[in-house]
């Protein structure tokens, strides 16, 4: 199998993600790691909460990775996304792509995170001192 897509309620293991996509045929690996920032638009964030519509999120991520294999000569693609409560600095998402040559790895990795943020049914709630906000819900 050349694709691994998982949602996790516990801390993501970045090294294990990288190890999974590495192979003797790959020469370049691009990895994107999304972490929880301590502030958004100047306001201090206490923590994040991620919620996923799990079967549909997996299905949409599978579509994205199929598009990637159709468009770029990549070897292995991994997407791990957290759900639940995340503290500042924790890893929310790991996307890792291996390829024989680096251009494909970079472009595919960027495409996956950009598309994930548009189509995959996962929601992020930012919790502040004085309230909480579902990100992007309102205009």
């Amino acid at each position: 199998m050349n694709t691994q897509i998982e949602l996790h309620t516990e801390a993501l293991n970045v090294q294990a993600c990288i190890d999974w996509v590495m192979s003797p045929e790959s020469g370049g690996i691009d990895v994107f790691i999304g972490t929880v920032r301590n502030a958004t638009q100047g306001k201090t964030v206490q923590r994040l909460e991620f919620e996923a519509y799990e079967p549909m999120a997996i299905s949409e991520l599978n579509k994205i990775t199929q598009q990637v294999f159709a468009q770029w000569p990549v070897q292995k693609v991994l997407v791990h996304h957290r759900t639940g409560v995340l503290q500042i600095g924790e890893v929310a998402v790991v996307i890792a792509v291996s390829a024989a040559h680096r251009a494909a790895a970079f472009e595919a990795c960027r495409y996956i995170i950009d598309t994930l943020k548009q189509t995959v049914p996962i929601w992020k709630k930012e919790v502040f001192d004085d309230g909480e906000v579902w990100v992007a819900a309102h205009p």
Partner: protein
Amino acid sequence: MKVNVLAFGIAKDIFGGSSIAVELTGDDTTANLKSTLETAYPRLKQLASYMVAVNNEYANDTLPLSERDEIAIIPPVSGG
């Protein structure tokens, strides 16, 4: 026809729960489900946008619904 609708993110707050039962009068389309929900829950119309998913696929407005479908309201996503 009565359908069950799953809610996520802010839709869960708007509906007051992670799933609601909706009685559809008139046609059985996604468009009718949306207008029925918007009448009952006006805050839905204040969202930047929202989609309906049927059986884990984004649905267009003309898709006919059945009582056995898994139907979900998908407010603007914000993963990653």
